[in-house]
């Protein structure tokens, strides 16, 4: 479903060239649950951004659902992101002035979905993530765990093929982190493809496939 071949990503810092990714080859099948681990600066966030089409590789080829997305224009990339990819961030990134419900609705608003259809999906998502009682609250009135549940519901609202989570528990206490992981794993059990970038070996170990990056290269790729 996802195939990366020879992905290179080079940043220019002053006069120096920093290779964030060096010839990464990676194939991810539908329904996989994988974690990407590695020390700071190993390129794991860059890999996630490339997977999420937020960053373009300098070289290599990226196939998503059998389609080469490497050379697509900005607008087309935005459309693919909207329809096929859901993001979950460490700092939740909820819009502070919008309610939980309006935050979940955002991707559907951007996609121009009919209000009636949005309402239908919203009701389902709010129920699924246990947010019915909090629908009208703004982020500053929600706990960290609730914020991340809102973010996951938002990521799921367009029914994406791939969920990308960047340190989803990094800003939460242990107990809430476990809860959020359970929610993400439920997405996986329902057939979703989930990729998690994390520092935490315990979180990383929960995934069925564990990838280790060092200096922009895949040094370990273990499947259970």
């Amino acid at each position, binding site marked *: 479903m996802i195939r990366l071949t020879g992905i290179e990503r080079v940043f220019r810092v002053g006069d120096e060239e920093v290779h964030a990714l060096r010839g990464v080859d990676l194939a991810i099948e539908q329904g996989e649950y994988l974690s990407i681990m590695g020390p700071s600066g190993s390129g794991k*966030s860059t890999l996630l*951004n490339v997977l*999420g089409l*937020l*960053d373009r590789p300098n070289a290599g080829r990226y196939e998503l659902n059998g389609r080469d997305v490497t050379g697509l224009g*900005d*607008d087309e990339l*935005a*459309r693919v*992101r*909207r*329809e096929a990819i859901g*993001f979950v*961030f460490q*700092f939740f*990134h909820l*819009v*502070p*002035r*919008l309610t939980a419900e*309006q935050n979940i609705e*955002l*991707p559907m*608003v*951007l*996609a*121009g979905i009919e209000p009636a259809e949005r309402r239908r999906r919203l009701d389902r998502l709010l129920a699924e993530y246990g947010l019915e009682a909090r629908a009208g609250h703004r982020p500053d009135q929600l706990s960290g765990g609730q914020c991340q549940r809102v973010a996951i519901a*938002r990521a799921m609202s*367009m029914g994406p093929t791939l969920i990308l989570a960047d340190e989803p528990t990094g800003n939460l206490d242990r107990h809430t982190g476990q809860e959020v992981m359970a929610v993400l794993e439920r997405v996986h059990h329902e057939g979703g493809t989930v990729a998690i970038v994390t520092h935490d070996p315990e979180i990383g170990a929960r995934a069925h496939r564990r990838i280790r990056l060092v200096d922009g290269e895949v040094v370990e790729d273990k499947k259970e």
Partner: protein
Amino acid sequence: MRFTDLLRFAWQVLGGYRTRTLLILLAMGIGVAAVVAVSAIGEGARLYVVNQFGSLGTNLVIVLPGRSETAGAMPGVLMGKTPRDLTLDDALSLKRSPSVLRIAPLIVGAGDVRVGSRSRETPVLGTTAEFIQVRQMDIGQGRFLPPGDPRHSQPVCVIGAKVAAELFGPRPVLGEWLRIGDRRFRIVGVLARQGQSLGFNTDEIVVVPLAAAQALFNTEALFRVLVEAKSREQIVNAKQDIEEIIRLRHEGERDITVITQDAVLETFDRILRALTLAVGGIAAISLAVAGILIMNVMLIAVTQRRKEIGLLKALGATGRHIRAAFFTEAVMLALGGAACGLAVGKLGQLAIGQAFPNIPFTAPWWAVVAAPLTAIVTSVLFTVVPAKRAAMLDPVMALSKR
């Protein structure tokens, strides 16, 4: 993104930063209100002057004895003789011009008007029956001077409303007699109240037949001749004809001055219109300032909402979506500001109108259209740069920064 969603999104932004929104609305509102109020004052002044001239009558040409020269001294003084008088025969000869519809020769003097023991000094106008049509005045009661040969007169007069009230009080005046100097006149009509017209109050005059005035003031010389041209287009012809006819009658001397009301009116109209535009333009500068304020605020918004913009992009917003959101926000601010400004400007105009009821203060239509339009155009223009900057924001950078 659906249009209603775009509006809702911008509305949420405006509601989310309330102080900021109110400040911009204030700036925009002041700008628009200033343009509307200032141009209303200018337009009021213009209409006031135009009405004053308009009340003299339409298509009016005024003939004055003597010639105003740019040389400084009157030629008559240098030659040792006074300019030739303008006479009734001169006036009547003007009717030969095909462009002239009516004429009203005029003699003006001050007379001691008496009724029984009451007396008062008033301006006395000697003229003919056509005067009332040339000046476009209305009769309140009775009728105006009877038509007939202007060289012979009946002992009748028409008086202004104020004169009637002062000399007769509430008594009926038609058919009563009054005395001017040593002559008696029967009152046949009272002029309708008209008030001030270029400093000359028609409520305070007494109008007598021309021949009677000639006898009263012992003069043949006319004060001036009012001529009504057949149409607006004929005014120029009438003026040429008048000059030619009088020149022939005065042995080749061009010793009259012909003023067309149109020319005077047009000059005033032009000057005051230009003045209104200029002052309105100065007020419009505040609109530009409000536009710059919007740009400033939008630029701050791009920095302030970096993360939000990055997030929107990650969620699949295109550059166009981001730009549209910024422009919608700017236009909504401008529309809101313009609406506030128009309301405040209108109130201001009403307030000034209360203070000076004589002057017709109305904002000209172009100001009412141009002010909000300028507000919208400036805010859109000044949003181009911030919106572009927002649309170009790199989502990875925007999201990674805390």
